[in-house]
């Protein structure tokens, strides 16, 4: 562990990216993610990396993909409205299998909404924001330290599986300051994309492999391959052949679905004897933890299940809890988004109670506790 520091969530996210090997950042300022862009504008040039403030969010996402194709570890950060603008090119990154990290520090929407108000309304945008069926990995931190460690992990997963990975933060964790001891950077924990070992003329940029992840050559390294957002064959060229189209899209899903155990992450607290379990993520998990403590003081057996990977959701782990016939209470700073995924997973085996607050204020422990008392 390093010396304790007083660090903001956004700063920790930027530091985590650097620790993971970030060498390229393109962004466009938007509250409440701006500190990430500002910090990296100072740090990256000094560390030999590249920083550019692009003309808009679309361009930022495009530049990130271009940079990643040359071998850079690349990231952009934004908030809801900017996240929406990035979606077109996030889809491109998914289709062309270009590793990159997109941070969305959520703010209250819809539209321009309330710029500095906490909210968790982008759960579904993170999953389905781009058109078409595509796999995605989304992590959601609840603490400043986790902003650091999860951003590192986001890079690792992006490189490992050649996918865009989304860090779904919220204003609470993004702007909160905490005393943190960051883990020492251990280079052995850094994952780099698989690179080709064949001679350039034998290289097939989108060939299926055992792990479903094709090796990725850098532009400029002599492999001379084609990259497109069109559905393509194993050489990267557009095709409408139904067999190839189906196989390529299936592979995109397989590379995530077949490796869920490496990607999925969660935390549970006091679930063994719990009769009510708060299923909670991001900044809301902090209020839920306090609510759990207060409930325990009142003699109610309450636990916490916190998905850290929102997509894919820690389904198997939730299934175990659902089988125990507990009551699930799902607090969210939205009108109900993650709750639908939870209802889908538990399939009526146990009751699911949403607790929603969308007023620009962070959800408070009492508000959650009241719901626990009501359903207990």
């Amino acid at each position, binding site marked *: 562990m390093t010396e304790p520091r007083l660090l903001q969530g956004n700063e920790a996210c930027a530091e985590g990216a650097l620790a993971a090997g970030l*060498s*390229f950042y*393109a962004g466009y300022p938007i509250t409440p993610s701006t500190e990430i862009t500002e910090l990296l504008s100072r740090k990256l*040039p*000094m560390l*030999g990396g*590249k920083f*550019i403030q*692009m*003309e*808009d969010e*679309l*361009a*930022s996402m*495009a*530049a*990130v*993909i*271009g*940079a*990643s*194709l*040359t*071998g*850079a570890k*690349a990231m952009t950060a934004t908030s809801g409205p900017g996240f929406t603008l990035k979606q*077109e*090119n996030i889809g*491109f990154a998914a289709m062309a299998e270009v590793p990159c990290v997109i941070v969305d520090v959520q703010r209250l929407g819809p539209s321009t909404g309330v710029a500095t108000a906490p909210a968790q309304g982008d759960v579904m945008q993170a999953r389905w924001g781009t058109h078409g069926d595509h796999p995605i990995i989304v992590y959601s931190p609840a603490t400043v330290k986790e902003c650091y460690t999860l951003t590192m992990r986001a890079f690792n997963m992006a490189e490992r599986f050649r996918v865009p990975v989304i860090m779904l933060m919220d204003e609470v964790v993004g702007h909160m300051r905490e005393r943190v001891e960051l883990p020492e950077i251990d280079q052995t924990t850094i994952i780099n994309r698989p690179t080709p070992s064949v001679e350039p003329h034998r290289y097939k940029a989108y060939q299926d492999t055992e792990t479903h992840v094709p090796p990725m050559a*850098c*532009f*400029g*390294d*002599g*492999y*001379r*391959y*084609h*990259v*497109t*957002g*069109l559905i393509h064959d194993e050489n990267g*060229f*557009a095709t409408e052949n139904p067999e190839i189209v189906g196989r390529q899209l299936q592979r995109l899903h397989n590379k995530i679905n077949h490796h869920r155990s490496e990607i999925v992450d969660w935390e549970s607290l006091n679930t063994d004897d719990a009769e009510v379990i708060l299923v909670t993520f991001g900044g809301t998990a902090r209020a839920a933890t306090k609510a759990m403590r207060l409930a325990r003081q009142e003699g109610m057996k309450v636990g916490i299940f916190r998905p850290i990977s929102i997509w894919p959701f820690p389904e198997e782990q939730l299934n175990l809890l659902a089988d125990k016939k507990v009551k699930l209470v799902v607090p969210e700073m939205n009108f109900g988004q993650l709750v639908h995924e939870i209802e889908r997973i538990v399939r009526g085996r146990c009751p699911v109670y949403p607790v929603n607050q969308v007023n620009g204020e962070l959800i408070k422990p009492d508000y959650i506790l009241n719901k626990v008392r009501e359903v207990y």
Partner: protein
Amino acid sequence: MLPEIEQYFRIEKLPHMWCPGCGNGIILHSLINAISALGLNQDQTTIVSGIGCASRAAGYLDFDTLHTTHGRALAFATGIKLAKPALNVFVLMGDGDCTAIGGNHFIHAARRNINLTAIVFNNNIYGMTGGQYSPMTPHNKRATTASFGNIDRPFDLAELAKGAGATYVARATTYHTKLLTNLIMEGYKNKGFSVVEVITACPTAYGRYNKLGSPADMLKAQRENTVNVKSMLANGGTVPAGKIPIGELYRAEEPEYIEEYRKLVEALQMKGGK
């Protein structure tokens, strides 16, 4: 195909998918002649394109090639060039791709004066989607979405590029292929953002709708409607009414983005990163 240019093509991807009479193949030929004459390393050269007829060009060329999203080619190219400045980056776009959906990226690439060579295939129409008007469809001309004549005013791409800060601006046609090759070479040599507009014919979607005759007629019109700025200067320096100037239109010395970034990093290192 001529053996000296064959090595730059993905022969197995030919024949191309462009319509008979389309000028895009002529532009590709000039581009490859320029790359060949410049002696650029094939492994160190990247072709980036957007979406549309012109942008399919990337797939036919044997380099690292990137076919991006509609209008975003210059933004992708900016990421490539900044991340790996050693790469030679050519950006191929259509007029709709570059000036409508990509208009913002175009003016900002020019403002930054980043060392990219943009080649804009100007056929005055959206070809791939079947002939809708673009920001470069002339006033009163017809398109499938301007059946009664286009009421929009078109961009002058060269003036737009110059106004936004590009440091090399040139124009040719698919009739003037040698000029085009030379302009692409000069654009590449310019350290900064270079724009080469190529007037090309789309007989299928634009010519037919506007009764411009056969592909050969459209090519002849390119000869007749243009005037070379060099000869124009020799004759007193005014563009005759109704003629389009071709050749090198503008050149300037301005700070280039990658160079400025390098200087910034060097200055920071001199100060010990403080």
